[in-house]
């Protein structure tokens, strides 16, 4: 339908149908390649890696040596099933089968790694560390890709996608909570920092939230200005583009000077916690990064309103505010939400770097891990940031689906 023309919506049933058609009626060669890669990885690379303590890097341990044969065979059977599914004729049934097998494989590989860690802990004591190995990562990434690909082909309703993604996240969380993973080095790192973890997640969210509070209104305003004042459009986006190209570390560093001078001059600011390092420069930098996508999305969304509709609205006696709120914004909603997703995901990722200037957040674990050469601590921070970004994306996606009921029909 016309509302979604040119917008960022790529998952319409039409496109899925086209993909299905152009994908041919035969087997899925990409999936076969992935399965072959998984099998090769399982045969030649370590499924987990076992080290004597958390600092010394571990030695790879193949799946067969790490767990009882039953577990290894189970995992191999799932990979085999995925390979057989890849040979089936393309269609809804194959997609369903692939998504179920891939989801099971992902969960099973995580559970198996947890089990391997428990066996190592029994055998070598509590100091020994079991990290996730190369074969695990290849299987996890491959099954995640196969799952996402199959889901994309089935093109379920946006709300159904949200439910499925939430179920996957819930299953992984249930595995973690049950204690099945608690001997993994990653879980140990988490356990050691249980107190700090919640606080850093909240801090991370606060950094992103603070930046959004600045970037969304300012960016939206700039987008409207770009729409209304043609002369300002080019210079405005040139400046915003320039900001976007400055490396994040540089911008955090560049803000230290002016902000510490400012807080030295104005003691009131210092008592508010504004200084060269800490949350204030981080939020300012993240706000700056959020401006371009927000302004661009607002501009693109509002500019997509058909001129005839605006002309008719004005001719009927809607004033400029009514045109904006009743016509342009509702029509731009799919694009606006898509750019909001982009901004949020981008800021969740960028906020990691803010830890460098003492702003805290999940980046703190990453930089501590780098300092201590503790890979699993780095991983803890990184995976948490990824999970946060995915969760935010999912939430906004469902918001978009709820607000634009006609978009998928």
């Amino acid at each position, binding site marked *: *339908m*016309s*509302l979604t023309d040119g917008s960022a919506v790529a998952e319409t049933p039409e496109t899925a149908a086209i993909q299905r058609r152009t994908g041919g009626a035969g087997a899925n060669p990409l999936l076969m390649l992935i399965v072959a890669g998984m099998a090769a990885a399982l045969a030649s690379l370590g499924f987990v890696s076992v080290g004597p303590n958390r600092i010394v890097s571990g030695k790879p341990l193949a799946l067969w040596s790490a767990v009882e044969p039953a577990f290894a065979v189970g995992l191999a059977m799932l990979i085999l099933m995925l390979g057989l599914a890849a040979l089936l004729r393309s269609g809804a049934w194959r997609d369903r089968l692939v998504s179920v097998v891939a989801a099971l494989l992902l969960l099973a590989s995580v559970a198996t790694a947890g089990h391997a860690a428990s066996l190592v802990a029994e055998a070598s004591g509590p100091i020994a560390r079991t990290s996730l190995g190369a074969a695990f990562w290849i299987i996890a990434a491959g099954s995640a890709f196969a799952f996402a690909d199959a889901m994309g082909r089935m093109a379920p309703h946006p709300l159904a996608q949200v439910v499925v993604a939430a179920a996957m996240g819930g299953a992984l969380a249930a595995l973690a909570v049950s204690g099945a993973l608690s001997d993994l080095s990653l879980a140990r790192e988490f356990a050691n920092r249980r107190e700090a973890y919640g606080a850093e997640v909240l801090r991370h969210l606060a950094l992103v939230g603070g930046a959004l509070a600045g970037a969304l209104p300012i960016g939206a305003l700039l987008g409207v200005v770009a729409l209304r004042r043609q002369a300002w459009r080019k210079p405005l986006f040139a400046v915003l583009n320039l900001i976007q190209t400055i490396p994040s570390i540089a911008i955090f560093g560049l803000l230290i000077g002016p902000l510490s001078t400012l807080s030295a001059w104005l003691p009131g600011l210092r008592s508010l916690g504004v200084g060269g390092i800490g949350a204030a420069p981080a939020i300012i930098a993240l706000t700056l990064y959020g401006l371009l996508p927000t302004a661009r999305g607002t501009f693109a969304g509002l500019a997509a309103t*058909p*001129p*005839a*509709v*605006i*002309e*008719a*609205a*004005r*001719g*009927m*006696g*809607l*004033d400029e505010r*009514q045109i904006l709120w009743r*016509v342009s914004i*509702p*029509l731009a909603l799919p694009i606006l939400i898509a750019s909001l997703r982009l901004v949020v995901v981008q800021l969740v990722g960028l906020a990691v770097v803010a830890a460098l200037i003492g702003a805290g957040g999940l980046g703190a674990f990453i930089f501590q891990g780098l300092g201590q050469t503790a890979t699993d601590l780095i991983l803890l921070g990184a995976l948490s940031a990824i999970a946060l970004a995915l969760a935010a994306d999912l939430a906004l996606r469902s918001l978009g689906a709820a607000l634009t009921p*006609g978009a998928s029909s």
Partner: protein
Amino acid sequence: MIVLDRLTKRFGTTLAVDNLSLTVPNGSICALVGASGCGKSTTLRLINRLSEPDGGHVLIDGTDAASLAPVALRRRIGYVIQSIGLFPHWSIARNIGTVPELLGWPAHRVAQRVDELLDLVGLDPARYRSRRPHELSGGQQQRVGVARALAADPDLLLMDEPFGALDPVTRDGLQGALLDIQARTRKTVVIVTHDIDEAIRLASLIAVLDGGRLIQQGSPHELLARPANAFVEAFVGGPRRGLRLLQVTPVGERTRYGMGAEGVPIDAGATLDVALERMVTGNIDRIPVLDRATGRSGALSLTDIVAPDGALR
């Protein structure tokens, strides 16, 4: 009554509207015609202040439009454009009810008015009120566009090439619908068109514009019979001026009352092209005429159509 008083509008150095004066009586349809870029659309937009004049005034029933708030003014004036511009995210009912809703009508009155208007433009309310614009054909959409413009019962309706993008059959149907609506509601209509046949069919007053200036105004018959200059002659008629003149001349004007002829009589109010058509297809050179208003009867012959006392009067 709409009075355009020495209206002038400049875009940069170009004069889009040049010292244009025109009076449109209440309850009439006035067509602004001319080639692309002649200033006809700009003139229309000056009336509801989508554009502000650089000189002159627009008087609506004696009130200077410049003294009214533009938004309030526009809510009192219906506006229909070629590209229709229905709100794609709203139902047909909400589209039509836009202005009444803005004016704060109670919901039940808006709903009642929407159904009334759908009936008026020939769309079944039960079938169409909750549909979305994209589910309708172009002709149906423009019917909704006309209904939307009439929603708050404005005295004045402005139409900017309203039927220009429609196929001939649909256009013909909508022109008929507009004439019908106008006959029933006595709206004052100013319509912009480049289609002289449309202007001849709809308007009682045609204003020919060229280069922002009013070249000639008058009834369709006046323009066809006595074009002011070669431009108007070429624009209103070209090679078909004589045939078009037949379309606007009533049979009664050429009838010889008291004389008789064979066959079914034609109404004196019908136009000469209809009479000529009857003669050509019936293979006759004389048909009886009946003036239903006065009861007089007479006859019209082929030579009367050609009007011996000067063909183009």
